[in-house]
């Protein structure tokens, strides 16, 4: 059985997952829903909330792991335009969950939309914003319906709109914006461009969104899971939240485990859970096969080999192991997987999703995808592997956003850690795994 001792009652977001009607406001209020929001609006100042979140060590759940309290504290207090008129501030929720292997935000929006809304109300109070946008990935039709219904319920109760919770002069409303299905729109400045109706292309930074964000106004962009963690911090106290994690990252995390495990799915566990324990928790590797590789934080994270998997899943431990915690999408690959094919598929995704602004990323992602495809299909040469490393070297760290670095993650790590497989492909002039699979099928 599972090596993890983490009782279900300790879960922060998915505590009531087993109940059928968690998406309704009635159920949410019956389990202390909107208590935190009411308390914040009645008793706490914006700075007080920011301090509390800082104390909780909540780190952004979108991928970069930036401390949320610090991000909120970057928002200007009283922004003025050139004429001295006050500027509005915008709160934006990044629900463009595009990272391959990640599906936690979908769960929150489907099952706990009110937790997201309450988190946004609290965050809106903290940064002094009156308008929130939820930018939902276009493919998430069910999630969009669920969140829109929840927004309507909250509006009907007076939790959103004008004079919320009956407090005069306190306004906050949330609008849902549907994306058009671009991976790059998960990058916060590309998301803001898309929200404004422009091409979803990352912006030059500086200025950062805290200065010039949505519609040219100071904006704060956070992930769905980040917002959903906030009500707990206020309700139960920052100390309790911080105690659940490591020194530098508090709380629990939704891990999306997919690939070759017995029970793939979303699991809420302490942020510093060991990767091997996590796989065990999901029923172990499928069919009792041996583990080959794990991508621990969504497709952009460099791969870990089976021997490297004895690592805690928090941000710092994974960074030390040469990869990243990313969005929490854990992709498990067993011994039947051809790493070259897996990398080739990932690179095809990146080739398709590069926004095409920066020269290196646009041409490089295309080039790499073609090379991996060629090697997988037996057309590789021995010079290709070093050449790929050189191309990656010319791409990484030279572009506007981190997309080019994300492309080089799977490309470089797969070659570095599974070089023998690439060499085998080149030597044989074909994919050895496909041959084995066919042979097994014939035997069976």
């Amino acid at each position, binding site marked *: 059985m599972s090596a993890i001792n983490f009782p279900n009652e300790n879960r922060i977001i998915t505590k009531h997952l087993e109940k059928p009607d968690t998406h309704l406001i009635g159920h949410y209020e019956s389990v202390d829903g909107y208590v935190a929001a009411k308390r914040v609006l009645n008793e706490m100042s914006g700075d007080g909330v920011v301090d509390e979140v800082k104390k909780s060590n909540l780190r952004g759940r979108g991928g970069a792991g930036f401390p949320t309290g610090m991000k909120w504290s970057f928002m*200007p207090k009283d*922004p003025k335009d050139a004429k001295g008129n006050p500027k509005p501030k915008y709160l934006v929720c990044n629900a463009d969950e595009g990272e391959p292997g990640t599906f936690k935000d979908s769960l929150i929006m489907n099952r706990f939309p009110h937790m997201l809304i309450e988190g946004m109300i609290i965050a809106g109070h903290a940064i002094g914003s009156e308008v929130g946008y939820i930018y939902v990935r276009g493919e998430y039709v069910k999630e969009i319906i669920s969140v829109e219904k929840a927004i309507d319920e909250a509006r009907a109760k007076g939790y959103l709109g004008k004079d919320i919770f009956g407090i005069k002069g306190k306004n906050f409303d949330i609008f849902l914006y549907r994306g058009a299905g*671009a991976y*790059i729109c998960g990058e916060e400045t590309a998301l803001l461009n898309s929200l404004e109706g422009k*091409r979803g292309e990352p912006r*030059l930074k*500086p*200025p950062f969104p805290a*200065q*010039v964000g949505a519609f*040219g106004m100071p904006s704060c962009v956070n992930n769905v899971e980040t917002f959903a963690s906030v009500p707990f911090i206020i309700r139960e106290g920052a100390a309790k939240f911080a105690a659940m994690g490591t020194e530098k990252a508090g709380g629990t995390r939704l891990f999306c485990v997919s690939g070759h495990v017995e029970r793939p799915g979303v699991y809420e566990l302490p942020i510093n859970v060991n990767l091997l324990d996590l796989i065990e928790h999901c029923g172990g590797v499928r069919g009792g096969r041996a583990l080959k590789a794990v991508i621990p934080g969504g497709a952009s994270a460099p791969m870990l080999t089976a021997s490297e998997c004895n690592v805690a899943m928090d941000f710092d431990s994974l960074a030390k192991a040469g990869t990243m915690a990313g969005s929490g999408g854990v992709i498990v690959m067993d011994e039947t997987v051809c790493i070259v094919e897996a990398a080739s598929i990932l690179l095809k995704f990146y*080739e*398709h*999703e*590069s*926004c*095409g*602004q*920066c*020269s*290196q990323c*646009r*041409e*490089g*992602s*295309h*080039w790499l995808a*073609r*090379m991996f495809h*060629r090697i997988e299909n037996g057309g590789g040469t021995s010079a290709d592997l070093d*050449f790929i490393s050189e191309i990656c*070297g*010319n*791409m990484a*760290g*030279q*572009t*506007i956003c981190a997309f080019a670095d994300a492309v080089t993650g799977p490309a470089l790590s797969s070659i570095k850690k599974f070089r023998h497989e690439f060499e085998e492909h080149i030597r044989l002039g074909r994919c050895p795994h496909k041959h084995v699979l066919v042979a097994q099928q014939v035997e069976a």
Partner: protein
Amino acid sequence: MKTELNYQSYKKPVIDTPPATPEAKPTPKITIDGVVIPFQAGDTIMQAAERANAAAEIPRFCYHPGLPIAGTCRMCTVEVEKMPKLMTSCSTPAADGMIVHTQSPKVRKSRTGVMEFLLANHPLDCPVCDKAGECELQDYNFEYGPSTSRFVEEKRVWDDATTKKLSDKVTLNMNRCVHCERCVRFTDEVTKTNDLVMKNRGYKKELSATDEERGLWNDYQGCLTDFCPVGALTFNDFRFHKRVWFLDKKKSICDQCSKGCNIEVHSDQNVVERLMPVFNESVNGHWMCDEGRVSYHTAMNPLRIVSPLLKSKGASKDAALVSTTWEFLFQQLNVVIKSSKKILFIIGTDASCEEAEQVKNWSSKLAGSSVVYFNGVNGVQTSKDDGKLDHLLRMKDKTSNTRGVEALGIQPINPNQVSDADLVIYLRAGRAQLPIEFSSSAPWLLWGVWNLEEVKSVQQKLNVVGLIPGLMTMEKDGSYVNESQLKQTVTTTIQTTGHCLTVNKVIEGLWIK
């Protein structure tokens, strides 16, 4: 004299900087390749370098001084001391005491990388590309690029966009595009017409007209082809007419409206091949309109009349004008001028200040003669009727020197003067329109730049007795006063063909005889 910029200048990165304190601060300085350069607050490294003319060594594709900053081509990266990564010089704000290296090995390696990426899918067929010789990709590849390509995959090819007409003026070859998006930003921010967009994303990103059926509709399409760093956008009027290294380049001004845009006349063996704008902050910025860009066709028109014409004595009104010599023309005209009591000189407002003055002086020596000016294009009578046609450059007054002629004290035309006169001499440089709405039975002498069709249509209404061929703006020295009262002087850029003479020589010829 400086006028306000009428095009949107580059966008500075918007950072909430505190307002400048009133007390004078020492000018901030930046060190670029060992040279200390003062810069203005808000400059990026590239702008600081350009101000000091040190930017020749910083290669760029997406950066253009007249366009908002994109920072996407990553070609202009430089090494800034104490910064971990290479920085794009076009978008990094300059800071006091910054030390920048534009040619360090790290920088050159990065640029070689960018060149290799850009050339991976770019056709390597410079000899058949119209941009060859003035192609930034070609130039930078000589400087930074790898000499051979390591790209062995199949090249990306747009079959349907290899020669795609974006409009009747501009042709797109998408295979050559390096996705700098100067063109898209130009239509977004300068013309504000948004008639170009990028379709799709990543390596499939394709330039397209926003409305593919309508195509481009802005009036500055030639500019797209000027700043396109590669042969992706080419101007139909010029493409495949001439290899650019044959072109002789001389500065002039455009005479097609009262703006007086600064241009460069590109000619080969006295044949003008194209006009290109030249940067002048107080006149046209970086741009010029398409109407002006193709205006050299007036001078190069094969129907242009380049030898003196005269109607034989006693011929009927409809009789044809016949070619003659200058000597005979002068002889005949002297007779006509001396026998006329009321000569009316009409000066088209596209004549230069000097020409107008010479005609005025001549008129003062002829008893009973008077001088007026006529504009007549777009319903403009005097400079007061002038106005902007759009937010950029185009003006209502389609002649170049209305204000210069007015400054000489010459009055606008009065219909009665035309009917009173017993000889009308009308001088123009090919742009002002003939005042044919005035009824006149007097003999008319046309002077200046005319083509055969124009003369034929004029002859149907007026009694044209002779034609004195004159010179276009680019064929003579002269000064022109533009809409903001700025006097600009140009020199001869091409020699005229045929027997055309300057105004001065014609007056001398007539006076001496």
